[in-house]
């Protein structure tokens, strides 16, 4: 009965990459809050996500949502060591810019700006694309993220060397790899089960 596609007919959809707080609407029916069991809430990890159409749709398969969310949280929020949060968000933004996920790029470019205080450089990446000149260190991180995001992936020893040359340890390079790789998961999900809506 719920197995129908939703065609939301969004007015004034976002058509450029932006750091604004835009929204998202689903193409398939999310679970309503009254349908959620304890297992669903556990899988949402953060209960507030029951209000999000994206997570309320993904929670239809709770096991993969829970494991995915815990992978995501560790890759981005576990900053007791390794690559600074700002540069993990830069890797996420670069992957999203390449793949074309306007919503993913908006969320993570905002985080990249917030943690780096380099809002103009982040905007340059959104406006000019993944070849924008952002200085040696960021250029190396973006180039590595983009190479890894190509299909097939083209990340090579040259990309790793370039990252070492701008001061990253192998532990930090691994954080770049995980940040960019994770957004190849996130971009495909977010692009394929719904679409962005304008800032309210």
């Amino acid at each position, binding site marked *: 009965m719920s197995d129908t596609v939703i065609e939301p007919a969004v007015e004034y959809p976002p*058509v450029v990459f932006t750091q604004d707080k835009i929204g998202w609407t689903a193409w398939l029916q999310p679970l309503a809050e009254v349908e959620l069991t304890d297992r669903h809430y556990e899988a949402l990890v953060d209960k507030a996500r029951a209000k999000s159409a994206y997570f309320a749709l*993904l929670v239809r398969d709770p*096991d993969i949502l829970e494991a995915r969310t815990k992978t995501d949280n560790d890759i981005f929020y576990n900053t007791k060591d390794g690559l600074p949060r700002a540069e993990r968000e830069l890797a996420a933004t670069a992957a999203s810019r390449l793949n074309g996920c306007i919503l993913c790029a908006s969320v993570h470019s905002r985080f990249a700006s917030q943690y780096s205080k380099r809002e103009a450089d982040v905007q340059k990446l959104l406006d000019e694309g993944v070849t924008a000149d952002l200085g040696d260190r960021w250029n190396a991180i973006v180039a590595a993220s983009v190479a890894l995001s190509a299909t097939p992936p083209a990340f090579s020893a040259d990309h790793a060397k370039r990252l070492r040359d701008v001061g990253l340890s192998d532990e930090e390079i691994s954080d770049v790899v995980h940040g960019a790789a994770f957004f190849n998961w996130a971009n495909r999900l977010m692009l394929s089960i719904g679409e962005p809506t304008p800032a309210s």
Partner: protein
Amino acid sequence: MTDTIDVIDHLVGITPDTPADALRGRRPITREHAHKSWTALFEPVDASQASRVERFAVATFVAALHADQGIAEFYGNKLAGLENGAVVLATIKALAELNATKGPYGHYPDGPLSAENTDGLILKLGPADRAVLGDRLAAALEHAHLLTYRPRDASPAELQKLLSAGWSTTGTVTLSQLVSFLAFQIRVAAGLRVLAAA
């Protein structure tokens, strides 16, 4: 085997007490939940909305489209062990060889980004392949090709093709997670291989 051995370690060939093992060991939560993601998708508690053959068939196809022969073989071997798997595997291998390309490409919503639109291969299976695979798996492979190479071309009409072929809403969510997870797993493996070789 998959209960005790971490799948990404297995795919990359990471052995204990090597530098690559140390890199993974410093992020134990990521390692644990990347593996749990795998078991959620490939050792499902409930396979009613997406069968094991469908899961391993799509995974084999997606890995082959990423030109990762080792990972394609890993999923292909598991597919071959399932009922009717060997026949499906032969078709998938042939389809992947014919339809492998380079991504990402695709179209943006109409506007300034239209200048960045790029075209590429759109997979449409013929009647002979459909006869072997069935409507559900044929639709899943077409969608997996789209998601792998041109995710920004996704649309409600593309999801409708899955529903029309017999996929449920929940099954479509699982399929989307599976293809998207593979895009992650294959790239983590690719990155770790470079770091392990250094």
